[in-house]
């Protein structure tokens, strides 16, 4: 059979169908690869873009935006619910975060506020004098109806380079995602209930007491 006088037969139609199907599937893959519309936060991506590792988490807190913003804006409040932060000291425009490290040691991280919009967001980043490159932001938005405020904590940090970097990163934040999640949930408990929930039977069994011993 010559190519120019072929008549559509069942077989060729099937072949065409397969080819078209293949094209459509290829096009679908291409579209998919480029990415369809996606409104989800960037830190929920399966492969996040960029050089920094980004972790984030949102909670809804039944309190007005202003109250939550105000509490967070006073950085000296943060160690109350941030488990690995021993203290935050204010010196002029910068703040030194004293981070707990294994063996009762601490690591200092100097940060400055890079953005501050009243009742909306606070962002901070480490300065050049810090050993660790990190930045964080907390965003406050109204939840629907009477549900209060959505609070998102997003942190970026440079993946550790070399053995020393890894060691420092490990000291700074062993599991940043777990840490951020727990800290944010403790913040929620503190704001909604006035206290940080513990299941301990005695004071010396609470996490806080244990950390004081270690520190």
């Amino acid at each position: 059979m010559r190519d120019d006088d072929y008549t559509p037969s069942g077989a060729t139609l099937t072949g065409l169908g397969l080819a078209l199907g293949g094209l459509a599937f290829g096009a679908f893959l291409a579209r998919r690869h480029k990415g369809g519309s996606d409104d989800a936060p960037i830190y929920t991506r399966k492969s996040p873009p960029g050089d920094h590792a980004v972790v984030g988490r949102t909670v809804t807190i039944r309190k007005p935006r202003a109250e939550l913003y105000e509490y967070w804006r006073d950085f000296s409040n943060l160690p109350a619910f941030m488990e690995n932060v021993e203290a935050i000291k204010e010196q002029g425009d910068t703040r030194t975060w004293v981070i707990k490290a294994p063996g009762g040691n601490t690591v200092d991280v100097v940060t400055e506020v890079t953005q501050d919009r009243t009742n909306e967001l606070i962002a901070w980043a480490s300065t050049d004098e810090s050993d660790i490159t990190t930045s964080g932001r907390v965003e406050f938005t109204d939840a629907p109806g009477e549900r209060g405020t959505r609070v998102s904590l997003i942190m970026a940090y440079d993946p550790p380079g070399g053995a020393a970097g890894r060691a420092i990163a490990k000291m700074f934040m062993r599991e940043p995602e777990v840490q951020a999640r727990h800290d944010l949930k403790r913040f929620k408990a503190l704001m909604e209930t006035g206290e940080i929930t513990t299941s301990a039977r005695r004071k010396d069994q609470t996490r806080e007491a244990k950390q004081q011993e270690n520190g």
Partner: protein
Amino acid sequence: MRALTWHGTHDVRVETVDDPEIINPRDAIIKITSTAICGSDLHLYDGVIPGVVPGDVLGHEFMGEVVETGKDSTLKKGQRVVIPFTISCGGCFHCKIQQYSACENSNPAEKQDMSATLYGHPMAGLFGYSHLTGGYSGGQAEYVRVPYSDVGPIVIPDHLEDDKVLFLSDILPTGWMGAENAEIQPDDTVAVWGCGPVGLFAVQSAIVMGASKVIAIDHYPNRLALAKQMGAETIDFRKTNVREALMEMSGGIGVDAVIDAVGMEAHGFAVDNMLDIAKQKIGIGADRAKALKQAILAVRPGGRVSVPGVYGGATDKFPLGALMEKGLQVRSGQTHVQRYTKDLLEKIDDGTLDTTFMISHRLPLEDAARGYKCFHDEQNEWTKVVLKPDMETT
């Protein structure tokens, strides 16, 4: 203080442990006067609930006297209180919409990950029920620390004795919510699987809610007799083909609503159930859901399925087709105890509900380990065990 502690499968002991103390402003310390062993404690006893650590104090059905209060507790020293087994903060979204057992704050942040991984969301805090639910010390003890004591505890008037009100802590509201979730209508026939305490309270609740007929299913003669005493018709599943009997007893339509008050350790000799038992034993964690599977096949199309029975994992061969094709509604969950305590206390006080009929044994706390063994091994005679820390050991 003395307390009942868990050490492994079928190994619980009464030991001396540290007394609890006030930690947070909303805490209270309760001196326990009565505490019960729950059917769901037997799941811990059998080692089928993950996250229990040797030394954990068990017990989630308890009441007592307020002996110490934090500065923000609304309780007063000397008050008699019953404590809901679910811990609720009162301030989060779920507490505000009265879904207390889904409280977002009562399970400490650092304990939430395991249940969040298992179920997609963390569980709330529960007393004495594994570290999945917070790892709180339970009430089978002389004293207990009660967090958020301004939300959960209900104050009991002096004229009501412990035995009448103790079950407000769990099994009475659990049976009641089990019946409420069955959305009972006046002409309904309702079937209840399991005549343990929760099943018996579900039977009683369904009758109070106006069901025209309640059918209770079990195999222990004594438990079936108690269900009959509460006004149910009964089926002994070892003697009778349950599904056929339920069709006949509901006029060929099928029962309108079914209540599974059995949960993850259902008895049964069918091959699939034996396989599930074997899997549970070697730790690959399939729940034995014999009762629930049977209930889903027995309920009429468009009927309601209520599951107060406790499940912890996954199950095989779930009749998903029957669920969809018959258009069933399923409701379940840990009990939102605080939603019901006030109303049920009134129903106990005015005699609408009888709460003492199922208590078969009262023991000193010191004998708690024997209580577990007998409640587990001799289910016909040991229908409900109440422990009293002040009772003399014989």
